[in-house]
């Protein structure tokens, strides 16, 4: 069946995920090369494009990391193909090096960066507003405010990028990436540019004048600034600024907003019966700061509220502008505590700010609801994330803890990495003490070793993360003689982000067969003398191998290799395969709860009445690792 984004039915209204809308926008605007590394909330852009790539003759790939993905897009644009790279906010940190170079170049085809911020860190370790990244690189930023615009702004981005010959960033946020909305489709009219190498940089600078360094760089920088001067006019032509209710009921007050925050303002206006009464300027372009449009909007205002997701980016730019254009203007927003500085925005935050400013009565909750909330808060328990039933990572961590204990090394330092296996830091395993960015486990372990702390230093890293950023740090361990132990948790997929393939899976994003790059061979080539490969479901062999690795007098790697439990269960379901599950022999179970406290598989529960453990056959996937956990041999097939 055709994917919905393949429909060539202009005018049809369909329900699309924000990320699918980006993918559709890429099709409508004849993007020919799209690359990315998986990262929530951006992953579904490439997931979706990969499904339709072959039908549309687009090159779509999961690259080894974001930097490579962006470089792939640069290469495509340099050779005349409209190209884009998509990534989550922290993922974009990896592209800074090529991005800072790319802004001095000029291609014949569009180059887009789709960057997805994750305010509140729903699926991330930090909050980061990538408009500042675009500001630093000096490239335009477009901010769609809903799913429809997510699609439409891809086209606008392509247009701007080609007219000023610069990369353009489309700044998405979780709440648009992962929201579904009604989108009116435009025409699909695929036409391809023949590939042809062209770069202004080449022609106008380096080769033409044969100049480098201080004679060339400030000149290139000047060209970049000249390009930016044109952006606001083009954006205006593309209707990226929308002013609503210019007459307004509140004469001297207005709201400036961008991204998903616009929708909260619109809901407020509707909810409070103020339709047509509040002046609103919606900015679809926020860098370079649209001085002309904003100046016009604030010229007759005494007060303005800025409602934006992320940092006070518009707010600070406006403060600088207002000094020249309207010094009496009172600017309200995050810096004045009208809008929360941290965390994702929502209707309530905007409602609080606007009702306070406009002197409207705040909404009061009935007493019954307040009492209910208080009582509920007392009995609700949190629901901590945990690894899935049968997850091979749980087995690997359990074995690692056992190995350390049996070698009488209760003190150790373990650094985690970015993936499902980060959950090994949580109860009940609590294996790692710390985690940093992608590949950080091995890199940080290097330094921990050189501190001379004198305990085993362990890095745990997933397969995809290993390819992404683990390899240079592993080479460093050999090079600089860091005696660290690396557990590679290889489950054949990029699990956390939705089971995308990686260089070890033998399949590309679009399902083409490709050569597998083997982790063990990389490790050996990195100079690691002891590389063990084990099946984490095989408890005894894993334990022996882990002990050997810990005792090895130099950097060593142990690869725990077993298919992701979620993929396994899906495959079994598709094949109609019956899963043989395990159960607890109630006679033998003495209620010690070791299986729960030390292992914590979600399939194992505890019956408080009978004081016995039980296994839920709907959740158990039959890995059998828990047999090795029960001290009373009460778990049976």
């Amino acid at each position, binding site marked *: 069946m055709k994917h919905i984004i393949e429909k060539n039915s202009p005018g049809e209204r369909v*329900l699309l995920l924000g990320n699918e809308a980006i993918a559709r926008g890429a099709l409508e605007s004849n993007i020919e090369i799209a690359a990315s590394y998986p990262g929530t909330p951006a992953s579904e852009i490439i997931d979706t494009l990969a499904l339709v790539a072959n039908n549309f003759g687009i090159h779509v790939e999961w690259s080894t990391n974001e930097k490579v993905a962006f470089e792939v897009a640069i290469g495509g644009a340099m050779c005349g193909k409209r190209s884009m790279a998509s990534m989550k906010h922290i993922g974009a940190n990896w592209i800074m090096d090529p991005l800072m170079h790319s802004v001095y170049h000029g291609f014949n085809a569009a180059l887009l960066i789709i960057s997805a911020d994750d305010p509140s860190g729903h699926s991330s370790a930090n909050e980061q507003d990538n408009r500042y990244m675009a500001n630093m690189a000096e490239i335009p930023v477009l901010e769609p405010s809903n799913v429809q615009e997510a699609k439409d702004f891809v086209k606008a981005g392509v247009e701007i990028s080609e007219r000023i010959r610069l990369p353009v960033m489309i700044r998405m946020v979780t709440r648009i990436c992962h929201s579904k909305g009604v989108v009116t489709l435009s025409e699909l009219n695929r036409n391809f540019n023949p590939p042809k190498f062209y770069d202004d940089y080449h022609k106008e600078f380096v080769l033409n004048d044969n100049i480098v360094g201080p004679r060339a760089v400030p000149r290139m920088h000047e060209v970049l600034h000249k390009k930016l001067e044109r952006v606001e006019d083009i954006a205006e032509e593309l209707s990226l600024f929308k002013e609503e209710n210019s007459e307004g009921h509140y004469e001297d007050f207005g709201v400036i907003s961008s991204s*998903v925050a*616009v929708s909260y303002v619109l809901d407020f206006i*509707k909810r409070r019966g103020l339709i047509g009464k509040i002046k609103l300027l919606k900015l679809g372009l926020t860098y370079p700061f649209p001085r002309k449009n904003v100046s016009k909007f604030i010229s007759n205002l005494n007060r303005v509220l800025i409602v934006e997701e992320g940092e006070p980016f518009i707010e600070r730019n406006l403060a600088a502008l207002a000094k020249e254009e309207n010094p009496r203007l009172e600017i309200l927003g995050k810096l004045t505590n009208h809008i929360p500085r941290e965390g994702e925005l929502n209707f309530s935050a905007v409602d609080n700010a606007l009702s306070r400013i406009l002197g409207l009565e705040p909404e009061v909750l009935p007493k019954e609801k307040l009492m209910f909330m208080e009582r509920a808060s007392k*009995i609700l*328990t949190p*629901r*901590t994330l945990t690894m899935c039933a049968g997850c091979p990572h749980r087995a690997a961590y359990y074995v690692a803890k056992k190995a350390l204990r049996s070698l009488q090394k209760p003190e150790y330092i373990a650094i985690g990495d970015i993936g499902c296996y980060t959950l090994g830091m949580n109860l009940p395993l609590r294996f790692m003490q710390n985690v940093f960015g992608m590949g950080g486990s091995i890199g940080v372990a290097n330094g921990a070793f050189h501190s001379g702390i004198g305990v085993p230093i362990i890095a745990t890293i997933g397969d995809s993360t290993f390819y992404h950023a683990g390899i240079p740090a592993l080479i460093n361990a050999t090079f600089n003689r860091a005696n660290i132990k690396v557990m590679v948790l290889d489950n054949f997929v990029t699990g956390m982000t939705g089971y995308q393939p990686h260089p070890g899976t033998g399949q590309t994003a679009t399902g083409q067969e490709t050569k597998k790059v083997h982790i063990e061979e990389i490790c050996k080539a990195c100079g690691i003398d002891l590389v063990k490969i084990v099946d984490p479901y095989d408890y005894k062999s894993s334990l022996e191998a882990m002990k050997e690795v810990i005792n090895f007098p130099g950097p060593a790697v142990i690869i725990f290799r077993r298919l992701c439990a979620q993929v396994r269960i899906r495959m079994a379901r598709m094949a109609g395969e019956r899963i043989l599950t395990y159960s607890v022999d109630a006679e033998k179970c003495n209620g010690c709860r070791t299986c729960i406290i030390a292992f914590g598989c979600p399939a194992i529960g505890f019956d408080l009445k009978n004081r016995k453990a039980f296994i839920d056959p709907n959740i158990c996937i039959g890995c059998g690792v828990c047999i090795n956990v029960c001290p009373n041999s009460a778990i049976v097939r």
Partner: protein
Amino acid sequence: MELNIIIAGVGGQGNVRAAQILGLAAVKAGFNVNVSDVYGISQRGGAVVSHVRIGDVHGPLVEEHKADIILGLEPMEALRAVARFLKMGGVVILNTRPIYPIEVTTGRANYPDVNEMIKMMKEVASSVIALDAMKIVEEEGFPIALNIAMLGLLAGSGLLPFKPDFIEEAIKEVLTFMTEKNIRAFRAGLKASTFARPSL
């Protein structure tokens, strides 16, 4: 017209799919719709809250204390959602079968008594439809379709501004694998809607 629905459950229960189907059904019936899922790392046993907003709406999320209906796939998650989202006099449709969080299985917290939770919900809801919906799908031999059976109960409540047929159409479009079994689960939910019709 504006109808705000929250689907609350636990990762792996099919929250997101149910919301997608409901949203698509609304589009097919000619409505504007926003669907949004709030989850961290889904599938890992965390709480998932899906927001379905039908009609004249802008923001992706249901405003706090403005939900008309809470569709609870899991009782404690339903309670959490009622506390945060249900408007006074809204309706709760609830599967009573709990999924215990690791805090409970490891004995660090108690799971709240289900009957007590239902009693509490009745204090703020105009009606609470609570039944062991898991049993419906177990009888169908298709326990993973709890989410779909719950959509059947929602459609059977008569609170949606469109006919159940639109949901069946949406199921066919979204669930291309085991479609028939899912349709059966939906109809089983619809058939089990023998409760008195709630109103908003």
